[in-house]
């Protein structure tokens, strides 16, 4: 089987018209023979006679030479088609129904897409890890075809397209998603916080609830543990204790007032993976009249309640490995040396033939 690495090169076959035109136009009839007995030669010049192609062998050699050069441009590869293709691999994401998946690719060697690629007779454990495909791609010979079956949505995937050496058959089956329970975001305020600031937060939470957000205000007693689902910790002028600092560095959001580095409007200061907002004075309407503005609660909600974690779900179809450069590397025997030798031979033959023709013409 022949594969063209640069099929556009075949357009050079259009040059085949060139020698035909040359043979039609530059005919040996234009040679002049001095001939005193010319009167006894009958004039005979019909258009068809002139259009007759001469030197068939030479023309054929020239056409062949051009064709070979065009094929050389197209960079052909000879691919050995049926050298006992190895058994294809079927990789199944854990959690999918084996019987349903087997129907997609019968006869393939089925494995779980898991570290060690255990056969499907074993029970699956763990989650889908697409980077395992890279490992397998590097390990298997290129001729082995791979079929990957995944649930239509992936959780906790980095959404980066894989780049593999081979083309992979990428199949998705609709599968039940892991349910993430919807939980109200908790805004915590220490019970010891100043009254005015507590009122401000309460008003904000009320505004957010009225706007449809699942928010819940919770007062924290001193020394009480931080609640689950905490989204915003309003410490105000209190210094964060060890638990609060750990939570903040792990991705929490903290609001503080009377801070030396405070700033209004609010600006996020990153602390670890979390962020800290601070205002220079008290966080209430007397210190910051702008809090009473009608659009302020919505603006503050976007700032303070914004989730820190990016969405962790991906459409499996969207991360199918690209058939990029890595995938399109064709393997096979390059035919260029053969074609080059053939072209050289043809050139030699063409020159000899042309020499012979011109020699015959001089007779």
């Amino acid at each position: 089987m022949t594969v063209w690495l640069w099929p556009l090169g075949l357009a050079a076959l259009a040059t085949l018209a060139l020698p035909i035109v040359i043979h039609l136009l530059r005919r040996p009839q234009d040679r002049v023979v001095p001939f005193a007995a010319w009167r006894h030669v009958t004039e005979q010049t019909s258009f068809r006679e002139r259009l007759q192609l001469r030197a068939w062998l030479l023309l054929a050699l020239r056409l062949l030479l051009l064709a070979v050069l065009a094929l050389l441009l197209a960079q052909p590869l000879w691919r050995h088609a049926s050298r006992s293709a190895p058994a294809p691999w079927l990789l199944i994401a854990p959690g999918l129904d084996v019987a349903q998946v087997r129907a997609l690719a019968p006869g393939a060697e089925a494995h779980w897409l898991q570290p060690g690629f255990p056969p499907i007779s074993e029970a699956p454990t763990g989650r889908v890890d697409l980077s395992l495909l890279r490992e397998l791609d590097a390990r298997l010979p290129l001729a082995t075809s791979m079929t990957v079956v995944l649930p239509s949505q992936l959780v906790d995937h980095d959404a980066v397209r894989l780049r593999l050496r081979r083309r992979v058959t990428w199949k998705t089956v609709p599968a039940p998603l892991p349910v993430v329970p919807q939980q109200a975001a908790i805004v915590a305020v220490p019970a010891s916080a100043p009254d005015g600031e507590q009122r401000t937060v309460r008003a904000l939470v009320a505004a957010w609830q009225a706007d449809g957000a699942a928010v819940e205000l919770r007062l924290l007693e001193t020394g009480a543990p931080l609640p689950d689902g905490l989204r915003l910790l309003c410490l105000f002028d209190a210094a964060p204790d060890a638990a609060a600092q750990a939570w903040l560095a792990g991705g929490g959001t903290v609001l503080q007032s009377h801070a030396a580095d405070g700033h209004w409007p609010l600006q996020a200061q990153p602390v670890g993976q979390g962020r800290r907002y601070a205002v220079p004075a008290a966080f209430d309407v007397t210190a910051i009249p702008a809090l009473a503005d009608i659009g302020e609660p919505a603006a503050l909600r976007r700032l303070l309640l914004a989730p820190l974690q990016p969405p962790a779900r991906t459409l499996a179809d969207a991360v199918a490995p690209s058939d990029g450069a890595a995938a399109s590397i064709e393997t096979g025997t390059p035919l260029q040396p053969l074609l080059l030798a053939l072209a050289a031979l043809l050139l030699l033959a063409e020159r000899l033939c042309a020499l012979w023709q011109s020699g015959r013409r001089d007779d």
Partner: protein
Amino acid sequence: MLIAPELLAALAPLRLRSRYAPAGLGTGFHASPHRGSGLEFAEYRAYQPGDEPRRVDWKLYARSDRFFVRDAERDAQLHVWVIVDCSASMGQADAAAPQRTRLAQAAALAACVFELATRQNDRFGLIAIGNDRVAMHGDGEGRRHRDRLGLALDALQAGGAWPDAAALAPLPARIAPGALVLMIGDGFEPAMDGLAMRLAGTRRDVSFVTLLTAEERDFPFDGSPRFEDPEGAGVRRAVAERVRTGFLARFGAARAERQRELTRAGIGAVDAYTDASLIVPLRRLFGGVPGA
């Protein structure tokens, strides 16, 4: 070197001879119509007033008391003229041997004739007609004259056409009656044929060697070349393979017709070819018993 060695060797048995008794004087090779001083005794005849006294045979007078004059066969010199066509068509050669033009063959043939004439003590001259003029290299005898004419033959150039009739008109007067005239041409000059017939009609022994190229004989062309007249008279374009048979038939007929006309005028017409030895036409012209 105009004559190839083997051709020179083959010339030995050939003799130039005229059908007419040569009118020239001098000690030549040929029988003269006149009797007189010569080496071979012919007859005695009675003295007539006016005979030279030294030609009277005094011994016979002493015996017979009568004057007798001793007549001898008078040897005569033959006048040989070679007329070479030098028009452009004589420059034609076969593609296989571009050096052997018609003119080169004609020069070799003329050189052979001059060689023969030198061996026979004949007088000979060369007339080259072409390039729109007539070039005469006057008659003479001997080796020096032969070599001079050899140089002239070497210098011949084919080109141009035949001159007009006015330039040809003095020619018959320059060629003495009884002379042997050898015309070498390609047969494509009607004026040359006319000159040959005019000379043959006025007691000159005229032979015509028609030099043809092998291409004219065989028509070995392929493809469709343009056949161009060397003298620019015209051009024909044809597919060679298609017209070959027709050409050979037509040209053969034309040659036969011309041959007949020349023969009828008393001209010995012989063909020669650029790719064949010249000994064949020479033998046909001069190969008979040398003679009377």
